[in-house]
């Protein structure tokens, strides 16, 4: 069993206070949204019913929160126990990411007081992709909290409860792998019905597969990113031996992704669109070049030993994956003549508030709960 450590230290640091200020601004606009309605804070319209709250908070946000999924895959499915030091921090970021994505959906849906109907089986519409995504994400949030519960039980020394939980936790771990596989691909499926409204550079029958691969890629990139940034921020030694091993997987995944992505566009005959110099073409090139850059960096074993190059590669993957999802949901989407959308300032602040809340929660948890692995004295 891996030993864990409560980091300790002051919680109310300057970054924490800056984040708190952003969260307060976000809360102000959230209050406005609930009093005066979505239209008072958002630029969303009938042509673009999904704005930044869905495209970033849910579609990109849950991908960034796939760290837990990716690590669980490797630790529990491929039975590589050596990676278990990465499990708790990864699970925790997933938990925050998904929880906040779930919360931001409540801001986004018009009749949020009806949301509980999703969980009433006799009202289920089993033919709806959106229903599947909603139910999966809702359940997965619960699963993540259950998976993380041992950390809280450690903290409060509820040993008896922990023994009991440990007996059934395999159910939650199994669900924790099944559910993201389902809904991350379904996030791609949702845009299938956009049809010709979505640029052919993004619309594809392979959307579900591409979304699933990007979820795993972004998940691992987030693990690497989080581990390196935490090492710098808390002045801890880097977990390079684990990170370079994980990153050895990435060239294969990235290669698979790029082959499917490019060849799919090519076979449908739309590759020339990428080089027509327009915004969409350039974004397509940029997003794939970012993946390619990460692939080239990580292809060399010596590069995988360098924290800096690992960090740059993880940033490229995070950015490329996020851009792919963002472009699929907003930039590449054109509902027809005259419609336009750019998030408004209040809308952006709600999203920034959610990101800031995530950072605050991370800082607070690692300082007060046994999340990060215990340092062994050399």
């Amino acid at each position: 069993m891996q030993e864990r450590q409560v980091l300790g230290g002051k919680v109310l640091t300057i970054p924490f206070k800056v984040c708190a200020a952003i969260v307060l601004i976000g809360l102000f606009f959230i209050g406005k949204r609930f009093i005066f309605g979505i239209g008072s804070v958002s630029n969303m319209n009938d042509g673009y019913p999904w704005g930044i709250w869905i495209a970033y908070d849910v579609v990109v946000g849950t991908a960034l929160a796939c760290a837990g999924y990716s690590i669980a895959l490797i630790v529990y499915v491929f039975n590589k126990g050596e990676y278990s030091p990465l499990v708790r921090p990864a699970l925790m970021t997933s938990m925050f990411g998904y929880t906040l994505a779930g919360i931001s959906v409540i801001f986004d849906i018009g009749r949020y007081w009806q949301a509980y109907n999703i969980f009433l089986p006799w009202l289920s519409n089993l033919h709806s992709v959106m229903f599947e995504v909603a139910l999966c994400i809702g359940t997965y949030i619960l699963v993540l909290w259950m998976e993380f519960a041992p950390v809280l039980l450690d903290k409060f020394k509820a040993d008896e409860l922990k023994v009991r939980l440990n007996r059934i936790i395999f159910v939650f771990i199994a669900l924790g792998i099944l559910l993201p596989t389902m809904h991350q691909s379904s996030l791609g499926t949702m845009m299938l019905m956009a049809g010709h409204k979505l640029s052919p550079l993004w619309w594809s029958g392979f959307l579900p597969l591409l979304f699933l691969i990007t979820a795993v890629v972004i998940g691992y990139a987030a693990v690497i990113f989080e581990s390196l940034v935490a090492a710098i921020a808390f002045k801890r030694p880097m977990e390079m031996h684990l990170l370079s091993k994980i990153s050895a997987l990435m060239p294969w995944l990235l290669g698979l992704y790029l082959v499917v992505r490019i060849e799919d566009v090519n076979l449908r005959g739309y590759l020339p669109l990428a080089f027509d110099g327009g915004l969409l073409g350039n974004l397509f090139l940029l997003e794939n070049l970012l993946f390619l850059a990460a692939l080239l960096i990580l292809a060399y074993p010596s590069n995988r030993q360098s924290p800096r190059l690992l960090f740059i590669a993880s940033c490229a993957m995070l950015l490329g994956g996020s851009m792919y999802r963002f472009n699929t949901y907003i930039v590449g989407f054109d509902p027809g003549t005259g419609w336009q959308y750019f998030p408004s300032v209040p809308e952006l602040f709600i999203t920034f508030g959610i990101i800031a809340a995530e950072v605050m929660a991370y800082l607070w948890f690692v300082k007060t709960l046994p999340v990060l692995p215990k340092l062994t004295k050399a």
Partner: protein
Amino acid sequence: MKEQDFARVSERLDGISRRDFMKFCTVIAAGMGLPLEFAPQIAAAITAPQRPPVIWLSGSACTGCTESLLRPSHPSLEHLILDLISLDYNETLNAGAGHQAEAALQASIQKNAGKFIMVVEGAIPVKDGGVYCMIGGKPFSEIVRDTAAKAAAVIAIGSCASWGGVAAAKPNPTGCIGAPEFLKGKTVVTIPGCPPNAYNFLSTVIHFLTFKKLPALDEKGRPKFAYGRLIHENCERRPHFDAGRFAIKFGDEGHRKGYCLFKLGCKGPMTFANCPAILFNEVGPGAWPVGTGHPCFGCTEEGVGFNIPLHTQADLKYITPGAAYPHIVTERGEGASVGAVALVAGVAGVALGAGVAVAKNLGKTEHGSSSKGE
């Protein structure tokens, strides 16, 4: 239907062309919500050599139902009614009168016991032993009870026969009730309306002839194909309702422009009938009360017609006006505001700066961590 089959009955149809006849059958099938393939089956049933006997009893009524049945302007429709069925008794249309007519009635009942269709027009007064409506020295209620006992099917035509109608309006001095209430325990099809639409009656009869059973009925005995929907659901003025455009007074601008009559007391939102869908008398669009500018008064609905005052505003059963009305110009969204772009650019800049700083920092520690050899 083959040409020679039609030739057999064309005389009875008073020279109507086969084409027009098949059209009529198709309309009837459509009116009942049946697939058009049923039209030939319907045609065969209508033109069968054995004409079904119909006995039509009139009680406390204004004869409007009979009149409306004779008025459809489709050529020869009256022949379809009068020649295709064997109308053995109808006080308005009988050639004979007095004892002669009553004898024909009794003869037909004896001969066709268990086979004839009985139609009741008008309410049945039951107060004081039914003395307020006597025919041939017998109370109407008695005639109805005796005849119904031998009928294959009972149809109550018009609002009076269905639930009392105008005859039972308060204070109802003669104690009028409808046929279903009077003949408790017997299935009575009701075709309410004041007057009812002739097609709803015809469709019900033809359904019975074609399929040898009655059409699906609602809990008030009304055929669902005709009374399944609110007037409000299919009203041509419904878009005005949804958009909040109402006539407020008779003759005002809204009234002249054909706005919704809800605020003038239209009972469309609480009345079930197919008037706006099939119209009256086949003279084209607008041939129904609301179409001509008069609010529906709910004649087909028990408890509404002859009960709620004409200009009292209707209760909205389940369709309510929108809380907000649509914009005249569709808002198609705003582009990027300066503030939003500045904010996004600023955050992107901070993120980029932080990324570069972290990368630099990682470069520095690279040697340190490797020398530690962990």
